[in-house]
């Protein structure tokens, strides 16, 4: 007689997706990020770069939904300013779309860098211990003692504003938290039986760390990385707002806000929309982060 309770064998991925899907807000957040990523990928398809950075002085401060004539490649074309124009008559929506590309790239690259560097250092510190661990962890403590944004600001202020320096500043300041996180996880994993088994089978340290230890340390790192991307994007807009990040005329949400600042009274649309873009992206990443934590954290599993 077959058992009345059917077993539901799920792969870890299915199990994760099943849990994650239950959090509706997190799924919405994921949808928003997918939207932004695809907008960033196909930015040139919507608006050409030349149009987005080129001045159209006669159309300065065109309000939301204005139709006006613009010059593009020597030709005069009718153009609909869906979200209006800024102080140079540039299309706000177009600049936001190209700005999305910058923000998405910054978020991914800085956190990829931080996870890679911080993760390796943390794994080494946790796995080998000893003097190496002391040096790495004290270094991380010192870096954590400086507030992230202040540190990033100091780096860019010293090195000069450029895209590379911005990435470097945000990347470096994001490293120490992953060092701590990975080290703590490695410490809990490295003495378990399966690691011993791998060692007994003759696996070398490198293989043990990469194939056996690290995969079991990924959950908190993934959650932190999601929240970290939000933090990175926020830091980048903040530095650009202060004139230390992406330099105009290249569009970035932070420098768009900085340019909109003198025109709060006359052109509030130049202020509202880029800010909304920042807020929705950060919000979406935070929602995904919360969802991932609930789905991956074994402590909360019932």
């Amino acid at each position, binding site marked *: 007689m077959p058992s009345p309770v059917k077993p539901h064998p799920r792969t870890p991925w299915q199990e994760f997706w099943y849990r994650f899907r239950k959090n509706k807000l997190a799924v919405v957040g994921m949808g928003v990020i997918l939207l932004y990523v695809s907008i960033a990928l196909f930015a040139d398809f919507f608006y050409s770069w030349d149009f987005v950075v080129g001045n159209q002085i006669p159309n300065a401060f065109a309000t939301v939904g204005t139709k006006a004539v613009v010059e593009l490649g020597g030709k005069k074309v009718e153009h609909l300013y869906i979200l209006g124009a800024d102080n140079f008559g540039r299309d706000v929506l177009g600049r936001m779309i190209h700005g999305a590309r910058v923000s998405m790239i910054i978020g991914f690259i800085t956190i990829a860098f931080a996870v890679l560097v911080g993760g390796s250092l943390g794994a080494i510190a946790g796995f080998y211990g000893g003097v190496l661990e002391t040096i790495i962890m*004290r*270094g991380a*403590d*010192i*870096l954590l*003692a*400086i*507030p992230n*944004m*202040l*540190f990033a*600001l*100091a*780096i860019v*202020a*010293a*090195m*000069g504003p450029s895209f590379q320096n911005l990435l470097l500043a945000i990347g470096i300041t994001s490293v120490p938290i992953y060092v701590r996180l990975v080290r703590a996880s490695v410490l809990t994993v490295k003495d378990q039986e399966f690691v011993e088994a791998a060692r007994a089978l003759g696996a070398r340290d490198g293989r043990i760390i990469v194939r056996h230890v690290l995969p079991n340390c990924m959950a908190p790192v993934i959650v932190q990385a999601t929240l970290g991307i*939000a933090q990175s994007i*926020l830091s980048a*807009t*903040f530095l650009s*707002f*202060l*004139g*230390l990040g992406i330099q105009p005329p290249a569009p970035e949400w*932070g420098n768009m*806000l900085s340019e*909109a*600042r003198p025109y*709060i*009274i006359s052109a*509030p649309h130049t*202020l*509202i929309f880029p*800010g909304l873009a*920042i*807020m*929705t992206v*950060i*919000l979406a990443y*935070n*929602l995904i982060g919360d969802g991932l934590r609930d789905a991956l954290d074994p402590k909360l599993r019932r």
Partner: protein
Amino acid sequence: MLRYLFHRILQLIPVILGVTLIVFTLTYIAPGDPARLLLPQDASDEDVAQLKHAMGLDRSFFVQYYHFLFGYDGPGDSFDYKGLFALDLGRSYVSNRPVFGTILERFPNTVLLSTVALCLSILVSIPFGIISATRQYSKIDMVVTVLALVGISMPAFWLGMLLIWIFSVQLKLFPSLAVPSNPLSIVLPALTLAAMSTAVQTRMTRSSMLEVLRQDYIRTARAKGLDERVVIRKHALRNALIPVVTVVGIQVGQLLVGAVLTETVFSYPGIGTIMVDAINRKDTPQILASVVFMALIFALVNLIVDILYAFIDPRIKAQYVQAGIRKKRGLFHAISRKTTP
């Protein structure tokens, strides 16, 4: 307790040295020669070299770092300074005033702004966090949770400008620029600065409270017929607030950094505007001094919070007392092991 205090203060030393070393290294490797910046465009290389010598910039990295910490006494008098520990890092390239003079003069403004924001955030976040937790999944809980989520996702500088647009441009209630003589002008900057911390603390209070409310001793308190208000206030809240205190402590540091942004948006005369002005004018000594100053204040605030924390949570103190006992016992065991075969 003294042992804990001592231990914690001792930990501050490597942090201070590390932070100063990092900030100093940044200016050391920064492109652009300060001596050339100070001289007119057509200055000869000899002039630059001479000025570098007078400023002590031709010395090695570690000598310069030593100067940075303990003072510099050059060939001339104009570039002498007493070093970071004497709160003297020379004069601003732009205004020629002592850099720490400007900072100490404006710092009270930043402290005032941060304090108002902190009080505001505590007054709002803790009650709302409690209400939200005690009525989990109610309408008010939903509203609070969503607002808190939006709050942590809102860039402060954007919020500041939105508040200016709503409250000073549209409603004409508060001034958009911060003027020290007008107490109303601190309202918008304080609201802006408080928003993020309020959101973070509300979330923390809610989740911490929810966790405590599930504990057995709360069930016991309810079972013995205590009034729900007493259960919340006397039993749950006291334990739920412990992690909140940590978060508030972290927020104090974050508020100081957030002040940089808020002050810029409202042209508020604090340490943030000093820093941003200095960055825009490439005024290296002033940037260096403000960054180091804020980092040190941040470290100091963390220290104070940690110490307060030990007073609030007896478990922290107990850890140190027990560690002491264990050490003595360990010694005893070591001796006894040697003597017994």
